[in-house]
């Protein structure tokens, strides 16, 4: 109740009562309020945000793309470099590159996301003059997208770099152990016996099979990437879902919080489903079982 009316406590009892009725807060939480919410959700209505006074679905949609841009860019870079470095590390086992990759991954795993963000923010803004936060410079807000692309890119460098560094290590490790396992398979021996050179073996035979675990991890990671987005968007005051979630929490804006949570849960489930489907396409052996 306090959350709806803010800190203004000088509100008459009648108004309080009508507000309660308007939001259905006078009914018992279970089953009435619960069923009411379920009914609304089923019809695509996520309710109205208490603090922003706009439909929750509309707010979520407006922030969704910013987060997808950030996470997508970071993930693509992390996957690309992770796969390449993991491939090299697994291929050149027990070399300095391999050890270095392992140590890097361990340290990246042990580093808190937000702290890495803080360090990159401090270093980037002091020495490279990069912006300290936001998505666009204030004078560029509201201009057509194609005119402000350079500004957008400059703002994206640090948050994307943070995400990339953090997920790079994990993809690298998975790729490495996966390629090591694949290289011990019989068909690799066959390929060698056929006289293919190392590059052909690696590219045509090993890489495709070794990529399979990465697909699963990418899908499973989505839920954790969202956690990363909350930290990174907070550090870089990036206007996306993560920051929205944090704001909704501090303002006790429950409809907004519920909507954001629903969106996260649904996207994780959808991602897992897509990974399963993709898996059957990539690996015909899965279909057989």
């Amino acid at each position, binding site marked *: 109740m306090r959350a709806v009316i803010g800190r203004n406590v000088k509100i008459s009892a009648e108004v309080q009562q009508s507000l309660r009725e308007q939001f259905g807060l006078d009914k018992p939480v279970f089953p009435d309020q619960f069923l009411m919410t379920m009914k609304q959700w089923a019809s695509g209505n996520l309710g109205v945000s208490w603090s922003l006074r706009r439909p929750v679905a509309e707010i979520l949609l407006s922030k969704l793309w910013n987060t997808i841009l950030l996470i997508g860019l970071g993930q693509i870079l992390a996957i690309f470099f992770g796969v390449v470095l993991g491939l090299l590390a697994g291929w050149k086992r027990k070399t300095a590159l391999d050890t270095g990759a392992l140590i890097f991954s361990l*340290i990246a795993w*042990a580093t*808190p996301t937000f702290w890495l963000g*803080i*360090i990159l923010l401090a270093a980037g803004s002091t020495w490279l003059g990069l912006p300290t936060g936001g998505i666009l410079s204030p004078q560029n807000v509201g201009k057509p997208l194609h005119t402000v692309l350079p500004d957008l890119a400059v703002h994206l460098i640090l948050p994307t770099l943070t995400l990339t560094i953090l997920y790079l290590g994990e993809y690298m490790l998975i790729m490495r152990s996966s390629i090591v396992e694949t290289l011990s398979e019989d068909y690799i021996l066959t390929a060698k016996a056929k006289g293919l050179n190392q590059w052909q073996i690696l590219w045509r035979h090993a890489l495709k099979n070794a990529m399979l675990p990465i697909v699963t*991890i990418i899908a499973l990671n989505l839920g*954790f990437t969202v956690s990363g987005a*909350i*930290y990174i968007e907070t550090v870089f005051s990036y206007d996306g879902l993560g920051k929205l*979630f944090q704001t909704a929490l501090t303002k006790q804006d429950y409809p907004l919080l519920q909507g954001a949570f629903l969106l996260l849960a649904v996207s994780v489930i959808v991602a897992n489903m897509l990974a399963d489907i993709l898996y059957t396409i990539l690996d015909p052996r899965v279909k057989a079982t």
Partner: protein
Amino acid sequence: MEAWQRLKRNLGELWKSFRGNRMGLIGLGLVLSALAVAILAPWLTPYHPQQVIRDENGRGLTFAPPSVHPPLGTDDGGHDVWAQLVYGARISLTVGFLAGFIAMFVGSFFGILAGYFGGWLDNLLMRVTDVLLVIPDLPLMLVLVATIRQMQLKISPLTVLILVIGLLYWTSTARLVRSQVLSIKERQFVARARAIGAGHAHIIRKHILPQVMPLIVANTVLILSTAILIESGLAFLGLGDPTKPSWGTMLNFAFDRNAISNGAWWFYLPPGLAIVWVSLGCVLLGNVLEEMLNPRLSGHHLEGEAHIVKLGEAE
């Protein structure tokens, strides 16, 4: 008691092979040194973390850079950063360790019961862990902590953190222990014990528990690193106890009070390094222990690579 003596003997052998592992020794060193700092905090600094350090004119030293005195400089309120760091170790480690131990107890308890008795209990466990695996953990914890705070129960904020982290991170332990118990309960000595009339409680206590114990220990060390990282994250987002600042809370203060724009690197670098120090120590130690103790990993044709796969899963 014979099984427990066997456990003791095994631990002795474990230490022998552990001594030769450089990664493991480094991990142990990192964890023990952090513990020592937390225990010895009052002897490591003349200041109290909330004490304002003043210059000769009696003015508070705000954002003073590191020097001989104070060694790590001061924060925006003139408090000694080094004092906050060593006392913060107590909070961070207490929350991390207690949460880790709760996860260990709950996970082992359900893992042993589900593995030993099977049936609907086992089904329930697997479904619950499935659900917890899919839900994004940080948003869930944020909502839980905030909701519990809302209820204004008489629980300290740190207790809320410990309970929420502990009660969400037990699933990996439970699954690991369960799979281990599934194989142990089929072994000969369990069948013999049952044949001479041993009850379930006796078999679990005397035969199952000593066998899974080493694995539980290794897994707990890995969980500790997650718990410490998560605590720092939640504290950074403002869910810590401002009167009992952990390393995460320090970073929250540093960020909110413009340490970055003031160039006060001594305020935001040390707490983060401390978190990396401890969680890296736990990961190294836990990976080495698990490699040595997890029967599913040792003897595999990928021996030596196996812990790397595990690390990926732990994320």
